[in-house]
């Protein structure tokens, strides 16, 4: 994951694209400066699992669980956190069964 970091890769989704109850593993944080640094320091390291706990009643911000504690991010900020869907935790999401 070096220089060639395309944003539009099909598997390149952000925290914002996830639904309540989804789990995902962090891939990278876009952006720079204070925001990125703060997230890293709070444990948003590549490989760490995040749970989307809930959306606020007004749909923004989002509550996450990471490293055993709860934290909230605005949607615009969540968009900067690139993740990979955790295939072990959410097997049903991929295979939508139809009657």
């Amino acid at each position, binding site marked *: 994951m070096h*220089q060639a970091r395309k944003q539009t890769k099909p598997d390149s989704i952000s925290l914002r694209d996830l639904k309540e109850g989804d789990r995902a593993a962090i891939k990278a944080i876009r952006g*720079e400066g*204070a925001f990125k640094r703060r*997230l890293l*320091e709070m444990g948003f390291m590549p490989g760490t699992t995040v749970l989307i706990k809930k959306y606020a*009643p007004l749909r923004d*911000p989002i509550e996450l669980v990471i490293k*055993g504690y709860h*934290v909230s991010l605005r949607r615009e900020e969540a968009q900067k956190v690139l993740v990979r869907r955790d295939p072990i935790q959410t097997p049903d999401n991929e295979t939508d069964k139809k009657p």
Partner: protein
Amino acid sequence: MTPSRPRTMKQTRSLRIALAGNPNSGKTTLFNAITGARHHVGNWPGVTVEKKEGYASFDGFDITVIDLPGTYSLTAYSIEEIVARRFIVHEKPDVVVHVIDSGNIERSLFLTTQLLQLSSKVVLALNMSDSLAQSGARIDTEKLGSLLGAPAVLTVGHKGSGIRELMETVVRVAEDQHPKVRKIRIPYGHEIESHLVPLTEKAEALELFEIPHPPRWVVIKALENDSEMIKALRDAAPERVTFLEEIEETRKHLFSLYGEEPETVFTERLYGFVAGVLKEVYTEPPMDRISRSDQIDALLTHKVFGLPVFFLMVWAVFQLTFAVGAAPMEWIDTLVSWFAGFVSARMDEGLLRSLVVDGVISGVGSVMVFLPNIFILFMCISFLEDSGYMARAAFLTDRVMHLLGLHGKAFIPMLMGFGCNAPAIMATRTLESERDRILSILINPLMSCSARLPVYVLITGAFFLPERAGTVIFSIYLLGLVLAIAMGRLFSKTILPGKSAPFVMELPPYRLPTARGLLIHTWDRGKIFLRKMGGVILLGSVAIWALSTFPRDVTFSRDYDAKITRLQEQAAVRESSGGAAAGLELEIADLEAARESERIEASYIGRIGKAMEPVFRPLEFDWRDAVALVTGFVAKEIVVSTLGVLYQVGTEEDEKSEGLIQALRKSSMTPLVAYAFMAFVLIYTPCLGTVAVIRRETNSWKWTAFSVGYAVVLAWLVAFAIVRVGTVLGLG
């Protein structure tokens, strides 16, 4: 105190320890447990971050405890972090105690790694260890202490357990007698170390700073492009350019190697180290279970019920503050007037009595009545904060506050402004970023406080139909809200552009606050109000008193005194002969009112009002309205009583006075101008008390002056717009 250690012969020694830790780590609770109520609250020099210093004696030591701001790290991105690390480097506390939330150990140890780089005397307080034990997780404190070279102690702040052992450890570490203390070097990996080691040697040889910094820390921070460190290096060593160049070279090299900024890589390395330590000392809880906190949260931030519950809470806080607070408010008011009467009766009539009674007692008394409100409000806010609900309130309302360029946490102070701006502005302390705090402070006065209501009631009573009064007053409140939003957006785009502090907010587990903690926090805030406000209010009241009392030698248009004396004699005669003197008494009251009105007109404050008349002429306010607005600077209730005096209806008028309403109707004021007058009252600075709080909370005269200045200008502009646009539309 401890028999095992023969220190009884020694004299008392003093120690200084600093408490570091994440926000919500229970640091404050532990601070209270160590120091009891013996502490002092102030500000860190030059910034608005609160500084708490406490005192304790232990085992023959006088210990000063400094509570550092809660931080997740020690970068230069927030003032809190800069304050914390500056203190450790510059003030060199004897021991740094890192308060760790045991339930959040991984993230906490990340901060430990940085503290260890800064200080060789660190003690870890594994706080809230009781809930850790309940969850089934285990920490091997012995091993943790050995691995980090910093002893670890289990504590439970709110129960006070483990404090004794913690203090014993602190003392031993300070005395260099603890076997576990050793300087460790947190490894950054082979490649990075191959740069760090030689650079550190160079930094050491260069002696870059007057106050010695740990050289490895200097290099790491410089490589992380830490703004403070780079600036300090430039200032400290203009001739040592090569060192900075070398740093820059290494930064580029590391970047090309890892494809990431060194700060990202370094952070990963520290977390890697923490993970390694935890693997050896930490046993995870057996399973994830739904905690009590999660259950509470399911309701409090519920999609449907979350907001209603929130408004219910706010309503309850309002009720407690202003309804329950009304009774003690009344008592204080009664007490003040009783005291004024008491003093009045025991002093000779004259200037001194007037100064004491009309200036000092009634001036300070007018602010003292707010004490119950302030104490109750702060009790509620402390409860919301200590319980963890404040973070949820921010979570629920952030979407709305974001429109104003503010953090969700600014919601509660805004709402409180409808009660009283002074405590509301003090409540902005809950905001972490200085920018957010200043922005909230600037727009808070636009929330129409309860003291402004009497003015609205009077004016609408005089100029609008009773059935419209509610709508008219409501529209004024709404105008304040709209202006707050507009100003918030304007300021955040111009003078306070959104910088640093992103909205990454921890939602701590719910906890039941301790009564002791609540009382301490409430008292701390109330005390500030008492002490600081007393001073400014006192000065302001005396100034206004002097302006309205002098000059003394007023030449009246007629000889009121003689006339009044004559009428009084007549009344006495008529009464003694059994006749009715009511008509004469009315005449006397009218004369007294006319005399007072003339006296005020001739006083300095009257002259100021008259001098300001041209300024207010475009708004079609006459000189009496101008004087009322000037006196209203002290407090908005005064506007009503000043109008009462100037419109010659008497000195004891309130907003329901028929006489004053009639007098206003007879004046040149039209409903349109009256509305503009209310808008002016809404917008310009609420009261002297608020100015004093703004000064205190922004820690800057510049912001205070700006706040007053912009409010007056805005008030004028809005009032002008109302009058002009209204006239064009034919509403005048």
